[in-house]
């Protein structure tokens, strides 16, 4: 897709055709980010599709996805570049045998040929027709040092390698940062980004997502699943299930050839929705205490939309 001929509607439509259902505000943010060359910071509960949108956008734009998964202790040599030491050593040894010129060797082993490119450098150096999508996933897991370093890269889109010089981005990659908010991101980094909070989807949106991803599902079952999810998310669970869980559950029920949801099949497949023992217990007690009206949800899911 040509980035110059985009519009908000086109983005929304293109994402939808790749099975990513998003509301207009998210499409607007993506559109702005492409036009302004500004990174997007996506926050939201786990499993609402923060990572997914970067992947889908890469498909839509027919360009590469470069992913940097953050973790504590992530440093420049893993995120940016590293010299290929074994290769350098081999070259030196070879030159020794062939009595090569010392100066040429010295300059040559510090060229791009001997450079191991890590995600950030790769994203900046890419020279395809369309800039790549750079996904910096779970930035809250990296530490402050890395954040500060990222700030530098994302504001100028250039990287300085002492032995080679400064490498400037020929075209700015489309940058997406995601955060699960396990800690606060520094203001300075936030300010350089467009911010978007992805909410849990509404009943209608979730239903549409399920129907798009699993077109073979019975409509009644899909409604039951979504109604159940909507109810459960309003309750006090340690880890509230996201859209990812909804889709897992739907595909589990399809695999089991269930056409409708009943208490038995729900109990059998609850492992798709809740991943903590405490939550499973909590669910049981809520069902027993009639706080979660299962019968109602199974019988008439449309009544339980919110």
């Amino acid at each position: 897709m040509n980035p110059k001929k985009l519009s908000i509607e086109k983005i929304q439509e293109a994402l939808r055709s790749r099975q990513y259902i998003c509301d207009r505000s998210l499409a607007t943010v993506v559109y702005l980010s492409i036009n302004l060359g500004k990174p997007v910071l996506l926050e939201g509960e786990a499993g609402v599709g923060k990572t997914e949108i970067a992947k889908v956008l890469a498909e839509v734009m027919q360009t590469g996805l470069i992913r940097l998964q953050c973790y504590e202790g992530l440093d420049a040599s893993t995120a940016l570049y590293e010299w290929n030491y074994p290769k350098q050593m081999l070259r030196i040894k070879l030159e020794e045998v062939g009595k090569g010129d010392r100066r040429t060797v010295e300059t040559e082993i510090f060229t791009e040929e001997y450079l191991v490119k890590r995600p950030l450098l790769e994203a900046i150096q890419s020279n395809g027709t369309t800039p790549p999508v750079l996904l910096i996933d779970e930035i809250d897991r990296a530490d402050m040092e890395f954040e500060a370093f990222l700030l530098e890269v994302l504001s100028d889109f250039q990287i300085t390698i002492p032995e080679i010089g400064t490498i400037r981005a020929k075209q700015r990659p489309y940058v997406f940062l995601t955060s699960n908010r396990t800690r606060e991101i520094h203001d300075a980094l936030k300010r350089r980004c467009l911010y978007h909070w992805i909410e849990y989807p509404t009943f209608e949106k979730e239903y549409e997502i399920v129907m798009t991803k699993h077109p073979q599902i019975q409509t009644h079952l899909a409604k039951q699943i979504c109604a159940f999810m909507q109810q459960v998310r309003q309750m006090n669970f340690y880890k509230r299930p996201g859209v990812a869980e909804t889709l897992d559950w739907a595909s589990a029920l399809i695999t089991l050839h269930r056409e409708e949801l009943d208490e038995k099949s729900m109990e059998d497949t609850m492992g798709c929705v809740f991943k903590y023992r405490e939550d499973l217990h909590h669910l049981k007690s809520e069902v027993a205490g009639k706080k979660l009206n299962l019968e109602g949800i199974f019988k008439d899911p449309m009544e339980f939309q919110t």
Partner: protein
Amino acid sequence: MTTQPSDQEIISTVKRFSSVRGQGILANLLAFSRVLKDLGLRVGLSQVIDASRSLEFVDITLRGDFYSVLLSNLICEKEEVALFDRVFDCFWKDITLDEEPMETIELSVPGSEESQEESDGPGGSLEEVVAQATSQEEDRTQDRDPFFLPTYSPRESLNSKDFSEMGIEESRAIGRAILLIASKIATQMSRRKKRALKGDEIDPRWTMRKNIKYGGDIIELVTRKRRIKKTRIVLLCDVSGSMDCYSRFLIQFMYGLQNELWGVETFVFSTSLTRITHLIRTKDIGNALERISSSVQGWSGGTNIGHSLHTFNREFAPSLVTHRTVIVLISDGWDRGDVALMEQEMRNLKRRCYKIIWLNPLLASENYQPLCKGMQAALPYLDFFLSVHNVHSLVALGRTMQKLVA
């Protein structure tokens, strides 16, 4: 973020900028960002510039898109969205973005009469304000309600001896427990590496560099090992009347921790906050006691945690608190101040620091539940809520510190 301003505050702030109306979209955008700033949101100039650039790319006659553009550019915190929405509705409500080009958009100027109406007109803003005020009043009366006061006696259902009746032996034991805690904190390992003579892994970059002098043959190895993370601790101790029976222990605790560890800052508070780091930086605890009691105002007085935290956040936190700082708050949570303020300050503090540990001597009592409003407001922002009433509880604190390291 600050406490939510009332509708009236929003309206009056918006009204202050009413002169820009009719001066084009850029002036209005600037005014809008100023309103947000005045109401306590953090909006940078670069964000405003980007917002105005963004407007070129969308059709601003579509209110939804216009809203998305401003929101994504100016706000970077989910909690700020609600306030943004209210200001947005108030600020842009008179403006009908029709088909005219941007520069010539006519923005209706609200006359003084009209805006007078606004403040007590539809939307029930005045009623809301009144309702809010009365509910606050109710809160206060509830605070004063003797029913809410602690029916607490320090000896109540405590199995082991309380700090309130501590002797020499116990203070030795405390000293040992504190040493344990201190060493746990002081040796926290970072995941980052530094070059070291005897490290656990080879640092290829520096090995290469170091061996250039041998013509590229590897003769010397440079290794690296994990760095020790220097964790700073800030102690905030409640020395109000309700904490009296613990004050001896508190001093011992503060003194012990500060003298065993690098980078401990100590504050005491009752109705106001006092920094006592310099007073207890000494090996002589007897003198330290005298110096503290002579320089701390309001010892054994009332409690205003919110106000004290506010002072701390404003004056000390910017320089003392980083993402490596562990805040240790020692208080029973009986607060006579503004609960909303306290909640807001706890939130601000949480945002700055690494962990907040609240030590509450009352927690050991079986009948105790953190019901008082102050404690309730603080709970969501705590990483650990522990009891300190005897030596065992201190050992438990040591274990928690170990968890922090892992």
